[in-house]
């Protein structure tokens, strides 16, 4: 069996999600059969504060069009200042992206809580549109 070459290609997004907070939110989107693009791949991590800037750059260099960090936000069970720490990691990642001639617009972050299913799907749809625009320029 082989897969027939697929449909129109959509921007590919890599999501780093946090296993305690945003993963349940993304799971919930699936449980509710809310549809988003199959070009969204997800890698779970313990906490969004631990995303390494080099991973973001590597993902884009390998062919992802954008990276989305589904952050723990204020619900983080580990760090009360998780949003600040995640933002700091994002700023470092944006700097590294610029150094590598990658538009920082290819990186997005938003807090995705454990019941933020709608929110996640909206973010994916919006981000794909933004990435499409970015690539048509």
């Amino acid at each position: 069996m082989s897969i027939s070459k697929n449909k129109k290609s959509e921007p590919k997004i890599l999501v780093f999600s946090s296993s305690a907070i945003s993963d349940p939110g993304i799971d919930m989107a699936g449980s509710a059969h809310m549809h988003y693009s199959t070009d969204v791949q997800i890698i779970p991590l313990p906490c969004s504060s631990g995303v390494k800037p080099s991973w973001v750059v590597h993902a884009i260099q390998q062919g992802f069009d954008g990276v989305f960090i589904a952050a723990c936000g204020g619900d983080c069970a580990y760090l009360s200042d998780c949003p600040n720490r995640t933002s700091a990691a994002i700023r470092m990642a944006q700097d590294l992206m610029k150094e590598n001639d990658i538009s920082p617009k290819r990186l997005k972050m938003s807090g995705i809580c454990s019941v933020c299913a709608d929110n996640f799907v909206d973010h994916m749809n919006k981000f794909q549109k933004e990435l499409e625009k970015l690539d048509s320029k």
Partner: protein
Amino acid sequence: MAQKRKIGVYVCHCGGNISDYVNVEEVVEGVKNEPGVEVAKTHMFSCSDAAQQLMIDEIKEKQLDGVVVASCSPKLHMFTFRGMSERAGLNPYQYVQVNLREQCSWAHTNDKIGATEKGINLVRAGIAKCILSHSLSAIRIETKPSALVIGAGISGMRAALSLADMGLAVHLIEKEDEVGGWALKTALMGPEAQNGPDIAEKLIARIKQHDNIMLYTGAELTEKSGNIGDFNVKVRLNDDSEVTLNIGAIIVTTGFDTYVPQDGEYGWGTDGVVELKDFRKMLNDGKLERNGKPIKDVVFIYCVGSRQKKTETCENPNSYCSRYCCTATTFTAKTLHALEEKTGQTVNQYHLYRDIRTYGKMETVYEEARNDGALFLRWDPENPPVVSQADGKLLVKVQDELDGNDEIEIGADLVVLSTGMRPRDNESLDDILKIPKSKDGFLNEIHIKLRPVETVIDGVFIAGTAQSPKTLAESVASSLAAVAKTGGLLKKGYVDLEPLIAKVYEDKCTWCDECLKACPYGAIEKNVCGDKEIAMVIGALCKGEGACVPVCPHDAIDIEGFRDDQIIAMIDASIKDIK
């Protein structure tokens, strides 16, 4: 990898939950030639006993050194399959679960081809992670058979007694000189007219007699070090002497403070406007008079300091419901009525409420209060009652929602404010324990439903109103829940911790102390290794959240299970072309 891995990949149909939308046979085809894959196949229900046995047999027979199950969310069955791996003699940390249902088949029921392609990439990423996995062992810590309980209100005393009855040594410390907490200061309590001081004194007597309990009053925690099962704490006593204790777990039952109204809030500061607790004292003394005059009309105002909205005058609103006040106030209505009957003095009661939250069986208290003749008027938070003074009496204006919002004026001898609970200010204790707080300012549990008395600090539990507003019964229930968790931990004698924590690469580390600054758990220490200084991770304190990882300028720190090489390999596998 130096040596070739032998990985088993099992793709689950989940009945049809996965295979109706993801072609699981194509997923197997797409991954079976990945490096390291020894066997790849599907199962109808991977979690079934039969399928688990088949996998166990295969792991043993083919001597697999890694297993990937692509099925439901790891939230459901990660521990199931870790257990299966262990039974097969495989290290559970060489097992990887791929979320092929919640994050693939169910999210893409409209795109079977896309879902199958995504599925292949998800499983490939799982394999890539598994190839780089290695055997890890849980961090085993011996636990000390003793506990520290902070705060000797009803919750703390009840916890201390139950732990002591289990045969554990208990150190109960109380900041005040007197134990008993709020109950000691509250006379009759709803819903069943128990006497607060009686309850408290019975517990105090038992505590003083109990061989396993050491009670310290006028005592404060000044230092805490160590980790779950083996903490060292220092307690300062009121004569400034200090005791050092070695304990296995801590229960925090520091309780609440009452809300103190702002000047002018519902007439606060005006003669005749009192808090519920003071009115209850008055009833307990059996006198229905104020300034020598008999009381004829009493107005109760509910939700004072609870369920607040942010306004100019209220910058930090208490947005929560304090839970106990509706029952306490309607119960006070009953107590007042009983006193009326006893003295023959008539008192008109007006209860101005927003919503009556006498939930569960406390509802009967509300019903009895109404049957006794208390009048209930409902106000809208947009139009709160206004209290002023007129002709030596208090004048309360309220728009009754239940009566067409007509403004009603009540002349009152006494206005009783039903004030809510506030988180207690315990700055020095907060600094020592580092328990996260909720947005309401109370101590926060890990999960309100699933782990309701545990905190992110392993071995530190919370109970009672330190955690959130609660009734006394609810406080005791949570305190006994904390006892069950503490007892389970300490009676076992040891605890196994997840080894998915930070690790330092000695060759890369230059001790710049960035990781130390990033770690809120004190899990990093400076260590001398040969002739250089490097960071060292204290396994029992590290939470493995990874805050230290992005801040390390030398890529010298990783989280096990989420190591740099694993994540890079997962990214590469996720984007590989489907042939």
